[in-house]
């Protein structure tokens, strides 16, 4: 456990010292502030009510979950795996006393922490923005539930990127393949609606299940189990490939 903790701290330290994730987090802030200004102007001067008190945070989530959040995930996971394999910096980690299983898990846990951290960071900014626009506090519980639920499909996507990054030969190919797969899976769910429920990408908006007046718990459970199934399979697959990878 001590070794896993040490490896996890190392991964967090490395990511926080990179520029790309910080830039993407800053871009999220810029987006939220830009959207807030736009919505405020429309609400105040054109007479069009674009969003209600809780809706602004959800509107931000619905846009970022298909744009900046996946991009943020791709950047950190590609850097963490393909990037370190490509420039051989991974040797420092792999020659530590921690086993490969622990190194892999530490990377996945660090990615999960940063994804969730980024989601909550945007949630807080958007909730404050929402309060400023509407001059009253939004339904924080629903917003919190939505952003927390949004984590699950993004985390599954992070595991897919980790798998691609372990197999791929370099950072550029890992980056391009990850984007291609994201677009392909989203495209497939549009062309073949009958396979939609089995694709994790079509569950990117499953947080909407808690937004209506009626909450369908059995559906939430079903999607949660599908996403957990994906997570377990991808973690096992990633672990196996990471263990066998020759440096």
């Amino acid at each position, binding site marked *: 456990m*001590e*070794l896993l903790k*040490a*490896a996890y*701290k*190392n991964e967090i*330290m*490395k990511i926080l*010292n*990179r*520029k790309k994730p910080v830039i993407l987090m800053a871009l999220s802030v810029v987006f939220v502030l830009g959207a807030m200004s736009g919505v405020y102007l429309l609400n105040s001067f054109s007479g069009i009510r674009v969003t209600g008190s809780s809706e602004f945070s959800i509107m931000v989530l619905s846009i970022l979950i298909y744009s900046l959040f996946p991009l943020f995930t791709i950047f950190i996971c590609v850097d963490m795996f393909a990037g370190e394999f490509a*420039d*051989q*910096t991974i*040797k*420092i*980690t*792999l*020659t*530590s*006393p*921690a*086993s*490969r299983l622990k190194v892999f898990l530490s990377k996945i846990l660090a990615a999960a922490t940063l994804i969730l951290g980024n989601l909550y960071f945007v949630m807080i900014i958007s909730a404050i923005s929402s309060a400023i626009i509407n001059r009253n506090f939004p339904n924080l519980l629903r917003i919190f539930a939505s952003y927390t639920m949004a984590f699950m499909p993004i985390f599954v996507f992070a595991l897919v990127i980790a798998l691609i990054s372990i197999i791929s030969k370099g950072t550029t190919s890992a980056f391009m393949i990850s984007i291609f797969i994201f677009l392909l899976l989203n495209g497939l769910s549009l062309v073949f609606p009958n396979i939609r429920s089995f694709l994790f990408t079509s569950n990117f908006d499953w947080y909407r299940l808690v937004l209506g007046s009626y909450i369908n718990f059995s559906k939430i459970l079903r999607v949660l189990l599908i996403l957990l199934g994906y997570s377990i399979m991808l973690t096992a697959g990633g672990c196996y490939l990471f263990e*066998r990878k*020759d*440096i």
Partner: protein
Amino acid sequence: MQRVLAFAPLNSLEGGLKLDTAIVIENLSKKYKNNRGIGDINLKVGRGEIFGLLGPNGSGKTTAMKIMVGLMKADAGDVIISGFSVLTAYEQAMKNVGCMIEKIVPFPYLTAYENMRLRSRFYNSLDDKQIDKTLDITGLLKYRNEKIKNYSLGMKQRLGIAMAFLSNPNILILDEPFNGLDVEGMFQMRKLITNLSKDKDTTFFISSHLIHDIELICDKVGILYDGRLLAVKDTKDILRDYSSLENYYLSEVDVNGAS
């Protein structure tokens, strides 16, 4: 499943048991797609010994060392360090091992101190004092807070050495440790290795193509040629029978290398 070395003789010392054999390599084989690699290597390195693995470029030195520290998986065979198999009990085997394989690539966006922290976190007993001490020994203390992207090749090599030595390991596996070092650095490195072996009973497994350095510091020398271990002999025996290690090496390669 942990595999503990059963055949190494055990000596009772103060504070516990200690194995006489630090490293055992058993039937180690690894073939690449181009049919190169290493085949059926068997070797034992005693505790406190400085073992030198000599061989030309492409002879399989780095492959053998990568397998020893778990960077690569062998097709067959095993490596047992301090009584533990690298395959089945990696964490125990690597607990007291420091290593530097090929050229060291520290994280360029981190400082020397931060790179050292990446390693020290795995050892509860290591604090900032130990990091500074190791950086001082390798002459990098004044560049402690400088980003690695501004380091020269020699400085990176020194940092790699510092990272390997940081935890005061019992066993050090160093692949071409003299590469990129200036004359002064090479001298200091040789002194550090011999002192640690003498004073702290540290075992060294060093690979190099710099025959002179191997001759100066190693107690025992193994010759790896075309993926095969041709011979293992004590340096003092070699120097008794041959005028230099170079002559011995050339003679072994000439006699056994082609077979």
